[in-house]
């Protein structure tokens, strides 16, 4: 039960963070610096008196955008290209696969780093870059899974029964490949959360006052001695989100 509740709670938290926070995450209050955990400030305040919970919630919605765009782009484009390659065969298959291999030649994080260098770091630019960089591996996986399914006897049987190819794809091919691809997407999204946090930590072209979890860690690392909780909360937020996503998608191949 816990396996479904936790990711659901996380999703609610991330979505809520986009619309509402208890305080303005940017509001400075010099009289309430380092308040510690109180009834007014559940997670306490930082060195400028900004409410930590509000900042983590605002950062959560930014992370949610990254999660969504990375997952959506990688999954849809990857599945489409990989499946198409497997079905089309011949020179079209080779072309698609070669292109996907080129994608892998530059590490995902470096693609995102370059994108941040050119366009500045925002959830959108990072999500797009990480998502596009994820198309290659997704497509390769989708291709090899589809090949395996297509080679099985029951596919030949359905073909000989005259089932249309679109029907074959939707009824027989995809139901067999999607769960595994989805599990892989979950894994990739988990990595993307860490990659986005790393990018924000590096801070290349980012707006440091935007409460990204990574940039909060960069800003608060001074206080690890006196106020370790300032470091702990954003770190926990990253770890918990990555973990939840991994757990949730691990189940995909079992449930579907």
């Amino acid at each position, binding site marked *: 039960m816990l396996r479904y509740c936790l990711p659901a709670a996380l999703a609610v938290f991330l979505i809520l963070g986009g619309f509402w926070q208890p305080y303005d995450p940017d509001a400075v209050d010099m009289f309430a610096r380092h308040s510690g955990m109180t009834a007014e400030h559940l997670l306490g305040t930082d060195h400028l008196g900004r409410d930590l919970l509000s900042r983590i919630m605002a950062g959560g919605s930014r992370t949610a955008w990254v999660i969504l765009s990375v997952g959506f782009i990688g999954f849809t484009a990857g599945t489409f290209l990989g499946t198409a390659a497997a079905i089309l065969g011949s020179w079209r298959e080779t072309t698609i696969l070669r292109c996907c291999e080129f994608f*892998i*030649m530059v590490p995902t994080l470096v693609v995102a*780093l370059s994108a941040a260098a050119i366009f500045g770091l925002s959830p959108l630019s990072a999500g797009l870059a990480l998502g596009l960089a994820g198309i290659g591996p997704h497509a390769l996986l989708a291709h090899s899974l589809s090949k395996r399914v297509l080679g099985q006897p029951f596919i030949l049987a359905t073909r000989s029964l005259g089932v249309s190819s679109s029907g074959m794809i939707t009824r027989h091919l995809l139901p067999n490949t999607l769960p595994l691809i989805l599990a892989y997407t979950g894994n990739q999204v988990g990595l993307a959360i860490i990659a986005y946090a790393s990018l924000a930590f590096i801070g290349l072209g980012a707006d440091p006052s935007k409460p990204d979890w990574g940039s909060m860690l960069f800003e608060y690392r001074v206080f*690890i001695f006196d106020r370790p909780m300032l470091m702990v909360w954003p770190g926990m937020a990253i770890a918990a989100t*990555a973990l939840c996503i991994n757990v949730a998608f691990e189940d995909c191949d079992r449930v579907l």
Partner: protein
Amino acid sequence: MNLVRFGIRSLTGLFAVSLASFAIITMMPADPVSIAIRVWNLPATDETVAALRVQWGLDQPLLPRYFRWLANFVTGDWGRSFRTGESVIAEFVERLPVSLSLGMAGLALAIVLAIPLGFFAAAYPRGLADRFSRALSVFVQAVPGFWLGLVLHWVLGVQLRWIRPFANDWTAIVLPVLLVALHSVAVLARVYRRDLTETAAQPHFRTALAKGLSERQALWRHGHRGAIYALLAAVRSEAGWVIGSTATMEILFGLPGISQFLVQSIAARDQMVLQAYVMVIAVWMLIVNGGAYLAMRLLDPRLA
């Protein structure tokens, strides 16, 4: 034959990567001529501007510009950095050893640690090593290396004083190497373990046991080779992650490597540095890939 094909494929790959990155980087909203005039204190007359545009080929369409750049790049002219005024290739040659040693040492350490960990995890399922490696792989998937680095930094360097994180000697690089290695240790150990376990389930392995070898001996003799093969295959995909963590570690620990140089240069819109960075990383990936490929061929001559 296979080797030649591998080489050709790699070169076409590099070519494609360079073209794609060149096209995207020229989209950068900055005019290199006006930056150069400002940074190098050149007179901003119309003639200078026009002369520079012609000299750098900015008056030409994308493709001719690209081939011009490619010719220069191959012959070792990588342009000049706007920020430092030095030639980009000299800056990279100076910094590359730091990044390379960090990344390669991390990867090497990961392989060296992953083999015993994976072996004992396979030899004693649900034993200490197995549980540890499973926990480690969950841990590294959720906890960012730089955060762990911050915490370790403080605990080991300041509280316990076991390491000297900022000394100008080899200890300065120990912690980052460990952190770079950590993720790969977890992944590679699991890959190695899975392959060993699969071997152990096969009939020929049962035969080996019947011949009087102990389980561990049999695993090592009959499973190790195949598992190393699987591990090397995983190294190829792990290399990207290693390079990524190398970049974060350079920033966190202030190591003067190429990623730190990129971060310092980019606010100056140093397009040449970014282009060179992408190329160097692509070549680096290719070398790791090629190395793993060669090692795999040695292990399994059927590939050749």
